[in-house]
């Protein structure tokens, strides 16, 4: 399937990456996620990836705690040592990791383990959607039913 033979670098976010250091307070990490319209912040020590903090981590914490998020460091809630890929790896690896591991966000690191990008499940599905084309059956099928009124 040629469509997924592309490299991760062709789809990944590579500028203005959502990144913070482990001592950043959770409230500040959340502000990054809100401002950049992403579902995670990559946690790094001088660009070396040490963790990832996602919306899922937030949900899990808030399900059982009611603490002030401005007083908790992100290192306490992050997932340590997340799975990563290199920029030249094939998109199929990213898709496989997302399905098997249940990840929606995969940090992309160079040979020195420094963060160079982020690929998300949305990047992958946007790519699939582009492959379907503007006059696809997908677009025709929903036709007049499309309403831009929010959702999940």
């Amino acid at each position, binding site marked *: 399937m040629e469509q997924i033979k592309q490299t991760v670098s062709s789809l990944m976010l590579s500028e203005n990456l959502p990144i913070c250091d482990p001592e950043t307070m959770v409230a500040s990490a959340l502000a990054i996620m809100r401002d950049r319209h992403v579902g995670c912040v990559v946690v790094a020590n001088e660009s070396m990836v040490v963790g990832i903090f996602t919306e899922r981590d937030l949900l899990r914490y808030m399900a059982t705690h009611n603490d002030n998020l401005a007083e908790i460091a992100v290192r306490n809630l992050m997932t340590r040592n997340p799975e990563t890929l290199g920029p030249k790896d*094939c998109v199929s690896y990213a898709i496989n990791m997302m399905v098997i591991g249940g990840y929606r966000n995969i940090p992309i690191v160079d040979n020195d383990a420094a963060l160079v990008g982020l690929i998300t*499940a949305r990047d992958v599905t*946007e790519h699939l959607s582009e492959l*379907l084309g503007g006059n696809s059956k997908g677009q025709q099928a929903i036709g007049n039913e499309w309403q831009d009124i929010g959702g999940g």
Partner: protein
Amino acid sequence: MNLLEILNTTQVSEICRRDAVFTSENMSLASVLNGMDLNHQGATVVLDTAGKMAGIFTERDVLLRLSGLSGDWRDQSVRDFMTKDPVTIAETHSVAAALYTMEKGNFRHLPVVDEYGQPSGIISIRSILGYVVDYFPDEFINLPPRPSLEAKSNWGG
């Protein structure tokens, strides 16, 4: 069939999650968050007291609508924090249509509705990717766990 043909000919009903737990609009946020955590759901469809769909509540709503709250929000009802009247997709529509709707609206989840407009499940980006992986096992399942473990020649052992 290639990927595009498959996504165009597979119906949403074939891949949507039917065991997703729905939520009553009167349920407390604490219960909703616990349910989403335990059931591994990134979103839950919210039903009104008549059992009709009233909205959707997602992980993104936790970030955007709950994380900045002070005081005890845990007993408040999900009704006040959900997205009302969400975009839906019919069971009989194609996965391609679901993908297009999700991409256009920036949604990760869509409530699925039956022929009577009643919610019958949820389709997510993950469901779609999972279906693609299942359909093309040679492209995915046979991959080594990491790219660095790929065979460098035709010979191996």
